[in-house]
């Protein structure tokens, strides 16, 4: 839900979201404490501009979010086996939330989850008429789609 006084930072791009660097940026921000703005903070659209298809991807992030990194871990040296043990151990990551390995694990999980969710999605159709526009999901009910196109004019 959008709120009065809410600060929003838009991250906009044109690449398919499952392989866009913007998705990695958003995943990194989320695991670091940034919040998404509202309950529908992701929009992927395609529109015809000059006879060509133009993709637009927009993430809406809460501009009031703050990130604090706490260096609450000692300097240490480890081999790959120990790194892997910690990386694959959910309980260890939750017990050591400031450790770089926990951040790496959270980033890996979040980025893979976002990419999985976004990979199969079709972009919504964006149709502009002057200053008005319509966003129509490709699986929208045909009756509602016809209704909205009639309203758009």
């Amino acid at each position, binding site marked *: 839900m959008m709120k009065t*006084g809410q600060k929003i930072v838009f991250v906009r791009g044109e690449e398919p979201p499952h392989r866009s660097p913007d998705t990695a940026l958003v995943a990194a921000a*989320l695991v670091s404490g940034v919040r*998404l703005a509202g309950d529908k903070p992701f929009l992927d659209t395609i529109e015809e*501009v000059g006879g060509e298809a133009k993709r637009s991807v927009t993430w*809406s992030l809460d501009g009031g979010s703050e990130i604090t990194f706490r260096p609450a871990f000692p300097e240490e040296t480890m081999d790959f086996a120990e790194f892997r043990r910690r990386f694959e151990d959910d309980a260890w990551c939750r017990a050591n939330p400031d450790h770089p390995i926990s951040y790496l694990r959270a980033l890996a*999980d979040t980025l893979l989850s976002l990419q999985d969710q976004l990979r199969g999605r079709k972009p919504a159709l964006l149709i*502009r008429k002057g*200053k008005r526009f319509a966003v129509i999901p490709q699986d*929208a009910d045909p009756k509602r789609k016809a209704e909205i196109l009639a309203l758009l004019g």
Partner: protein
Amino acid sequence: MPVTLTKIGIQSVDITLAESVEVSAKVESKPLMDQHGKFVDGAAFDPTSDFSLKGRGDLPAGLAIGTDGGGAAGLFTGGVTIVANVKELEKNDDWNAWECSGQHFPNAS
């Protein structure tokens, strides 16, 4: 804030219609005078954009597209957008209606 380990789900957008989109850009200006008080130059600073949107369906989708400058690069990219007013009306027999207005500060961080 230590690392966030919760799973994040992305909701699909619903059908959306923006019936009114008004965006205006403005800058503050300051005249520069010479020692005799004559105008010699002007400087522009603090660019901002005001927006006012009205539509039906999903407000977040309306806000995301309504502030993209019609696809023109640069508008509402970077900086911070503040939603000054928002009104959402849920209806049983029609789509949700919404109105939203605010400002974009491209140089804010």
